[in-house]
């Protein structure tokens, strides 16, 4: 698809490419969205010692595995960027597909994890701890899914050697999603 880009998009008075500027803006706005959820959670968790009993039932091993999956997917994303920088579109696309595999793995594992927890009676309403748990992880999972979909779109263009700069951009977004999980993991799984 030949994108007819306005001249405006190609200017760089701020010293960086427009797309990259936009992605960092998106990251900043997502920081305040997740920040709101996590700040609310932390306030509640600190004041509800009794939630420790509920929190004990989150599965640290699954959480750790998922963390590992996301960290590895970040690696493949940044390697994809490197390939794109060298102009190797097909390789970048392959690495992006690997990242998507990581995203899907994460979501599937989470699906099993939640099914396990729900069938044991830990539903979203059984305690406000679980409300926060499902909500925070759920919003994160929605961003994983959204990121994976965009990544597929970027990869299909990269495979043909087109729009390679977008590989870096979706990568930045992806790393941010990873960083959110880096904080969610201890909050929900370790520091119970």
């Amino acid at each position, binding site marked *: 698809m030949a994108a007819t880009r306005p001249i405006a998009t190609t200017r760089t008075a701020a010293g960086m490419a427009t797309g*990259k500027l936009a992605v960092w803006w998106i990251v900043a706005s997502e920081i305040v969205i997740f*920040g709101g959820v996590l700040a*609310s959670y932390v*306030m509640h968790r600190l004041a509800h*010692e009794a939630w*420790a009993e509920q929190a004990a039932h989150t599965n640290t091993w699954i959480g750790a595995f998922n963390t590992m999956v996301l960290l590895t997917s*970040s690696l493949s994303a940044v390697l994809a960027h490197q390939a794109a920088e060298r102009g190797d579109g097909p390789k970048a696309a392959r690495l992006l597909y690997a990242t998507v595999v990581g995203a899907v793995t994460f979501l599937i594992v989470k699906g099993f994890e939640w099914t396990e927890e729900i069938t044991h009676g830990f539903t979203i309403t059984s305690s406000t701890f679980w409300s926060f748990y499902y909500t925070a992880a759920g919003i994160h999972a929605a961003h994983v899914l959204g990121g994976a979909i965009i990544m597929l779109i970027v990869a299909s263009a990269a495979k043909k050697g087109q729009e390679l700069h977008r590989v870096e951009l979706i990568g930045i977004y992806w*790393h941010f999603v990873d960083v959110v999980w880096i904080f969610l993991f201890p909050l929900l799984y370790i*520091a119970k």
Partner: protein
Amino acid sequence: MSEEAHHNYVRIWAWLVLLLVISVIGPFVGDATGLKWITLVTAFGIALVKAYLVVVNFMHLNSEQKFVSYFVATALVFMLLLFAGTAPDVMKAEGRNWEKPAWIADAAVAAAGGDHGSGEHH
């Protein structure tokens, strides 16, 4: 130069995985020694380090224009501000003319059950 960068990324990833392992082990150590702060440091301290590694090495924040770091920092500062302004109200279980029954109950549980074990059940 690209090959070095390649190895660099993999090295960073290896560090991240190692830190992950430490953070998972942390609570066991914390429980065994009874020092709760070990759990907190390994959990959140490591999270901060991991986040830093990802942001600097994978997102290349350091090689971007300075103002990008300021955007991100500002967003984080605002979140601290939100916490500082909201927590004094949300974390209180009762005031002059109001109370939150479930919070009072939970605080009582904490006071009673806080002596034996640090509330960690694994």
